[in-house]
């Protein structure tokens, strides 16, 4: 028989833990996010330094913040869905194509005749529908996510071109068009939508069983399966969720452009994946944060804005942008290391 009572009093374990609680890996996302904040502040400082004339005008600054957020809003919504898919161990290359297909489908004359409600319903239904197709191919057809969603990308853009006859379809629905045009309490409506989607995503990931399953499935799919989680159904749901986000984004983008066409939301997949990864989501799954992804999107939008106010030519813009992406990630890593060293000494 075992006698265990003699040793290991918990008392002497306590101090070691209090000393190191913040250092355990659970707080890493927070630190990474701090690093992204630092990058953001740096970008703003560069903005102030290069265009003091603009930044001295407080109305302009205020408007500029909203310009950045509006620019970030559509891709931000897409990125929330993408973050779930990547944390769950997948990838969705079809997001841009889904946005385009949903946008085009909801702006056909037939759909527009059902009014704003019909258009929104159509966009969401198309988004979820294509997402479910992705999910079925990947979860039940056992296709590699990269290939399946690439195939759907190509097919969905083709279908969008077919439906629209490659024409730009103008939205004549004032309700839809007003979403992007109007404010509430001085803040653009699109920013509210972004905030709502981010908040919902955060709660879903961190406070619900769905979020926990996502982390489990992406972190160790075999462990999740052997713990009784229905991995296939969950995978399906993840792609459907991504599709839903694309549907929402389609409405937002249609509203911004007061029109939709088959080539819209071009390469959003790369932007969304890049933002999520910059935000600390592990490409191999199992780890990531919604806030990080949001910050990633905002960093990209701020870079674009910085270029615009300094009127850099596109080619210079692109060269600098590549450098900034690299720098941002390096700063994250640097911060992580140096800070932990700093704290270690303290």
């Amino acid at each position, binding site marked *: 028989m075992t006698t265990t009572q003699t040793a290991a009093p918990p008392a002497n374990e306590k101090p070691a833990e209090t000393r190191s609680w913040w250092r355990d890996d659970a707080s890493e996302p927070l630190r990474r996010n701090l690093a992204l904040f630092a990058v953001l502040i740096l970008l703003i400082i560069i903005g102030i330094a290069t265009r003091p004339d*603009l930044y001295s005008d407080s109305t*302009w600054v205020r*408007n*500029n913040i909203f*310009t*950045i957020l*509006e*620019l970030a809003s*559509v891709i931000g919504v897409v990125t929330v869905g993408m973050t779930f898919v990547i944390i769950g161990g997948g990838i969705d290359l079809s997001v841009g194509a889904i946005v385009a297909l949903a946008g085009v489908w909801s702006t056909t004359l037939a759909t527009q005749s059902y009014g704003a409600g019909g258009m929104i319903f159509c966009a969401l239904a198309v988004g979820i529908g294509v997402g479910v197709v992705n999910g079925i191919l990947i979860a039940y057809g056992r296709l590699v996510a990269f290939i399946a969603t690439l195939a759907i990308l190509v097919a969905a*853009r083709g279908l969008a*071109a077919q439906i629209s*006859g*490659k*024409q*730009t*379809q*103008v939205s004549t629905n004032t309700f839809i*068009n007003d979403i*992007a*045009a109007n404010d509430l309490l001085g803040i653009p409506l699109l920013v509210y939508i972004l905030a709502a989607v981010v908040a919902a995503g955060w709660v879903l990931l961190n406070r619900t069983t769905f979020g926990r399953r996502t982390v489990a499935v992406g972190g160790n799919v075999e462990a999740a399966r052997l713990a009784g989680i229905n991995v296939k159904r969950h995978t399906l749901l993840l792609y459907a969720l991504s599709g839903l986000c694309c549907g929402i984004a389609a409405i937002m*983008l249609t509203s*911004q*452009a*007061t*029109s939709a*066409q*088959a*080539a*819209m*939301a*071009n*390469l959003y997949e790369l932007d969304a994946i890049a933002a999520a990864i910059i935000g600390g989501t592990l490409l191999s799954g199992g780890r990531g944060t919604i806030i990080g992804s949001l910050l990633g999107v905002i960093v990209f939008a701020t870079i*674009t*804005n910085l*270029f*615009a*106010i300094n*009127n*850099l*030519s*596109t*080619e210079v*813009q692109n060269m600098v942008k590549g450098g900034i992406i690299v720098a941002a990630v390096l700063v994250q890593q640097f911060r992580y290391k140096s800070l932990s060293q700093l704290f270690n000494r303290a």
Partner: protein
Amino acid sequence: TSNDSGDDDNNAQVNTGNNNANAAPGKQVTIGFSAPAADHGWIAAITNNAKAQADTYSDVEFKTVEAGADAAAQRAALQTLISQKPDVIVLLPHDGKELNAFGLSAMQAGIPVVNLDRAFPDAKAYRLQIKGDNYGMGVSAAAYIVAQMKAKGVSAPVIGEIAGMDELELTQERSKGFADTLAQAGFRVANRRAARFTADTGQQEAASLLQALPKLDALWNHDDDQGIGVLAAISQANRSEFVMVGGAGSKAAIEAIQADNSVLKATVTYSPSMASSAISLARLIAQGRGMSDLVELQVPKEITLASETITKENAGNYLKLGF
């Protein structure tokens, strides 16, 4: 197309207008300008022409914002332009319909908008619209081909088409003009491939098209930039039994037509010189002046450039306008 990076010194697409009453300096004005950032010779020429034309005026301050990759980025860029309070905005939108809302709001804010090339659907969204004729391009190309076939006595010619980026509306208009006009002569397009306005895609699509059509009588290629690749594919396949018509009117294409040593016999224009004109007219609008050759005191609301056909006969006249 040329390898020199478009120095403005001897740019034939700029109106230096020495003998023009409107060339005299007027009120100091700020012109804002925005065009999308496609890596394409035609768009590059648009931007270069606009800048060069603005440089000829001592009374114009020229501010450009380059729009990023899509309409959303361009809209954000235009916001920053607005904050710099220009007197007039010259805008080549990614897509006229997508930026219609911007045009409306700028006009409402009292800033006249000169729409370049890609039309806003809403007439209230612009003060002046100056654009090429995409449908007309197709018409001209088809008309030339029909004439050639008739002259050669080919009754049922095999006609190919290499289009530009298929998802753009302008490509659709060009193809429609082409098909409509051919149909009037009882002809039709046997095979149509869509390239992406670049030489490498032009080569690949042309190689595929030539393989699909072992015998060909006529070929229309929408864009002279991608035409470099199309011509390469034709010579790589050792084909010469047909006539080819180009599009847009690049310097290289016009030279080739003049030399008459390839299948390229004509090209239909879609000239980036419209950017120069847009700047000139924007200045007049901002200064409240009219066009000196017109009786009206104001610049008119719409100008559509004709698509001309350049052949060996008239190539010499157009050579200086090639971009």
